[in-house]
């Protein structure tokens, strides 16, 4: 008994209880559904019905043609999207941080705007630009040269859209690396006799390598688990990737929950493996390159080439933001969108219909706002508590908590949706089909993102600040409320905004879990797209866009924070 007492006492401490409660919560919302899904891969019946365990699903899948073809497709678009995204991101990061390209300072914010935009809308908008049937750019080319050179539908279109909208990940990571790099590391190479090219190849580039690798893996995983882009750009063409195949199994006819789960299992192992690999690589390759007194990094004078670099950056902004989103908004005012849009088709009917007649609109707006504003708040609150326990307390099992809370990073949204279907579609708890299942899915899936931003802020706050509150008599809770929380504000706001923009555009989780009462923006757009009502979905998308911008502006005004700080 005496031996157990110290352990018991440790377990009974308030922070230990907190650890247990949060761990249990994540267990129920992530690990339990995933386990049920894994079990489902060994069953031949839909969720909730008894079935002998069998390996048939795996046998069928691995011996089928479609699986290998679509695995190949997934790898193809992921590799392509990664190459394009990393190339765009790294080249722009280098131009912005290391050259004297004109106006570069003014372009930094526009360059990260795509980070906040929905790639799903990006894909929809790009069909209006580069579809062979009704793409605007094809229209321009036809008028000039008599050909329609582009076709956005298909793998190349997917790679193009992914590259455009995922390049900010590489841009942000690599420009951070380049900015923080101690310039004397490069100067040392020069004084040792290396010229600019040798310095670049043998010192700068190797020092950038961990950042490039990290962003490549990040983009690769994001591309592989993408559902919105390949569903818009290839599903109607019957060109499937693993995510759209899972959707097909669960929402097509005939439904096959077990095969859906089995393919989802493959994806889970795949993304899990990538995330694990990334963590392994990063642990060994993270270079601390921040030096002592810092002179500004060496800027390469580009001369006339500066304008070429400037055009490159501008072209990126035009192709990723101005052209697609301008077109998208324009489409919402047309009766028909065609390769040569005619003025006589200009109309407000779409807007009138969506705002006043379409029954789903206001439900979607209400749900999306509740989920994004409320869900982000809940997620940030939980993350703040987890971060505090992990960084500051000596609670029992806090490292395990950190690992478990970060685990959902490796679970693609669509796969979490599959798991939730399996776990709760026949559950006695009446959560399936309500907005709350979406809320739980969003929060548990995306806690790792806000957790990371809050944890890193907390690690930078000197522990003494909290200890001096303790010593002057403040309780544990009071210290958190009056000292830690205000100091954490930048991290909290950054985490909140990040989750807000993620939640308001969420598609891949919602698409499997929504009902007519719990529709959200992206799901509504997806449905309208399947019904072939492009101009009407453009209205919904435009609404989503404007609401996002309005809330972000409101937020940056209330909390006096610049949006660019969010992505640091």
């Amino acid at each position: 008994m005496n031996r157990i007492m110290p352990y018991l006492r440790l377990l009974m401490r308030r922070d230990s209880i907190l650890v247990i409660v949060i761990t249990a919560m994540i267990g129920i919302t992530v690990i339990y559904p995933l386990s049920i899904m894994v079990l489902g891969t060994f069953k031949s019946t839909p969720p909730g019905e008894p079935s002998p365990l069998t390996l048939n699903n795996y046998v069928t899948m691995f011996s089928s043609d479609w699986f290998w073809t679509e695995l190949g497709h997934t790898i193809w678009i992921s590799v392509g999207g990664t190459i394009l995204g990393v190339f765009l991101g790294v080249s722009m990061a280098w131009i912005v941080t290391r050259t004297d390209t004109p106006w570069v300072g003014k372009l930094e914010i526009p360059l990260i705007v795509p980070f906040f935009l929905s790639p799903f809308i990006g894909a929809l908008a790009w069909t209006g630009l580069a579809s062979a049937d009704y793409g605007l750019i094809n229209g321009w080319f036809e008028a000039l040269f008599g050909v329609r050179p582009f076709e956005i539908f298909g793998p190349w279109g997917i790679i193009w859209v992914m590259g455009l909208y995922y390049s900010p990940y590489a841009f942000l990571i690599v420009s951070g690396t380049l900015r923080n790099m101690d310039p004397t590391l490069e100067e040392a190479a020069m004084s040792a006799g290396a010229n600019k090219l040798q310095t670049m190849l043998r010192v700068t580039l190797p020092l950038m390598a961990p950042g490039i690798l990290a962003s490549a893996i990040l983009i690769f995983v994001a591309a592989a688990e993408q559902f919105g882009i390949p569903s818009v750009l290839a599903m109607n063409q019957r060109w499937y990737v693993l995510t759209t195949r899972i959707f097909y199994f669960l929402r097509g006819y005939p439904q096959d929950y077990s095969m859906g789960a089995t393919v989802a299992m493959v994806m889970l192992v795949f993304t899990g493996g990538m995330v694990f690999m990334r963590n392994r690589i990063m642990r060994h390759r993270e270079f601390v390159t921040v030096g002592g007194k810092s002179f500004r990094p060496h800027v390469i004078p580009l001369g006339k080439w500066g304008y070429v670099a400037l055009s490159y950056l501008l072209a990126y902004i035009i192709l990723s933001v101005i052209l697609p989103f301008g077109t998208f908004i324009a489409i919402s005012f047309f009766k028909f969108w065609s390769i040569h849009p005619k003025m006589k088709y200009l109309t407000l009917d779409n807007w009138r219909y969506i705002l006043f007649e379409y029954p789903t609109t206001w439900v979607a707006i209400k749900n999306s706002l509740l989920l994004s504003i409320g869900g982000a708040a809940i997620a940030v609150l939980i993350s703040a508590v987890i971060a505090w326990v992990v960084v500051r307390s000596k609670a029992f099992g806090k490292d395990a908590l950190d690992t478990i809370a970060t685990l959902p990073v490796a679970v693609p949204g669509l796969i979490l949706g599959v798991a939730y279907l399996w776990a709760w579609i026949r559950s006695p708890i009446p959560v399936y089909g309500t907005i709350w299942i979406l809320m739980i899915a969003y929060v548990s899936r995306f806690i790792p993102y806000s957790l990371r931003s809050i944890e890193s802020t907390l690690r930078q706050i000197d522990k003494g600040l909290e200890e001096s509150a303790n010593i002057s008599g403040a309780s544990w809770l009071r210290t958190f409320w009056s000292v830690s929380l205000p100091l954490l504000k930048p991290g909290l706001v950054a985490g909140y905004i990040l989750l807000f923009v993620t939640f308001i555009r969420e598609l891949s989780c919602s698409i499997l879990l929504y009902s007519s009462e719990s529709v959200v923006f992206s799901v509504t757009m997806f449905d309208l797209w399947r019904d072939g009502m492009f101009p009407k979905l453009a209205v919904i998308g435009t609404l989503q866009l404007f609401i996002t911008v309005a809330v972000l502006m409101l937020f940056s005004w209330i909390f006096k924070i610049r949006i660019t700080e969010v992505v640091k």
Partner: protein
Amino acid sequence: MRNVRIEKLVKRFGNVTAVAGVDITIPEGKIVTLLGPSGCGKTTTLRCLAGFESADEGKIWIGDQLVFDSKQKINLAPQKRDMGMVFQSYAVWPHMSVFENIAFPLRIRKISRQKVNELVERAMRMVGIEELKDRLPSEISGGQQQRVAFARAIVYDPAVLLLDEPLSNLDAKLRERMRFEILELQRKIGITTVYVTHDQEEAMVLSDEVLVMDCGKIVQRGDPEEIYFDPRNEFVADFIGKINFLRGAVLSCRDCGSVVSIREEGFQSEIHTIRTDYAEGQKVLASIRPENIIIYPDKPQAEVNTWPARLVRKNFLGGLFDMVVEVKGKELRCRTPFRVEAKIGSDVYIQIQPKDVLLIGIN
């Protein structure tokens, strides 16, 4: 090994003139220190010499080679100047092993594999890090990284060695040891060296010649003893070591010495010195180092430069007493290694020998 000449170097950053017309000559094989407070332009001067900043005016020669000339628009790239440099942050490349770091300059120079091994081994032996050969920079200490940076800077036998506050990130004990090691190493290879520091002790220990810089100008140059015992202006006197100033004017000046009338508020007296640098009527600062003020409990026999005083503060620093005495409202700092029995607040006498009174002319 070559000499270095810098002529009328000027460097501006926007409206700020960081270096305002600096002339430096460093003879072959000598070690010269640029000493000054932060922002005095010493690092900028070094960076102009290295080629990382291009100066606005002036010329720089290394040996017979003109490497920089603002008028002829000559500005040799850093890698063509044949210099070795050690940075404050060491700048040891984190992605290369110790060996690869040191071998880098040789590989750039396309030196044969065998020769590379030989030269790197020799450099590592010289700085005493043979056993670290295959380690990564993240696996060695700051002091060891510093040695790697050093080995890397000398391995290719450059004409000039530039050291930019190389010791300022080390802890006090190691710093003291490294001073002597650097000096020993420099003597052994006999390389022309420019050393930038804000630490006067470092400058004293290391230099053949010290150049004291302030506001982008060289305010005094000389060997370390000269700089300490014969400062030419208020800034140098104050910056190097500690000193007391007594404001006054030269009353009389003869061959054997001068008399200065002290015109401090409250403290009006005459002080004798053996210096004869200034003519009668010149306003001067009579400057006395703390260790040259002698404290007596009773009135000493000598009459000259003797005043009654009161002990205001006494701190024992271990091996040294640091005190403040007050003479008619003027506080003077004194130091002595001998035991002082007098208590704080007690009356004492101070005496200063005429040979220890320096004169610095002021306007």
